[in-house]
């Protein structure tokens, strides 16, 4: 089941294309738009 409005977003750290890891909790204080975007722009 997808998370819903009001849930706490689970923290994660993932590698990014900007050569550094991004940790969600380090963005506290900012609004974050997190998009899962499979199969776009790829040759797959």
């Amino acid at each position, binding site marked *: 089941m997808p998370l*819903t409005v*009001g849930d*706490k977003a689970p*923290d994660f750290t993932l590698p*990014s294309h900007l*050569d550094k890891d991004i940790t969600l909790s380090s963005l506290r204080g900012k*609004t974050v*738009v997190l998009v899962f975007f499979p*199969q776009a722009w790829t040759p797959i």
Partner: protein
Amino acid sequence: MKAWAESLGGISYPILSDFWPHGRVAQQFGVLRSEGYTERAIFIIDPDGIIRYVDIHDIDNQPSNDVLFAELAKISPEAAKVQQQQRPVSPGLPHGGVVMYCTSWCPDCRKARAWFKEHGIPFTEVDIDTTPGAADQVRKWANGSRTTPTFDIDGEIIVDYQIKRLEELLLNKK
């Protein structure tokens, strides 16, 4: 991943790889499908780390940016300001009347050309593959994507082949 992002032409936000362990973050958010890939999903997370908006949609049915900007504005008026910024045309690109940013190969550009012809509407074409600065201009309007066709109709920007908006703007004028 970096090479791939560059091949898309420079993207201003970080692209993350949810690859190892495979799809773990998607799983935590509940959007990993049993087929092994994720839903198309958008989460807006507020400054306290609480989810404030969830959208899960079909691959062909993404919500409009207007909806997302409205959601962002609810959380922080600052976040929605980008939308209101004036986006003037870069020097060197045509402006005035109907300008269509397109490519020689995109199917919707072909449809748009036919539609303009059918209605006798004159237009200027800018091929974003061959015109310097044109692809960057489209990205500014289309939130980072090279969306074609994109139209500049006397300053009104229409991203993508939105026939209804074209009709509103161009057919009702007559």
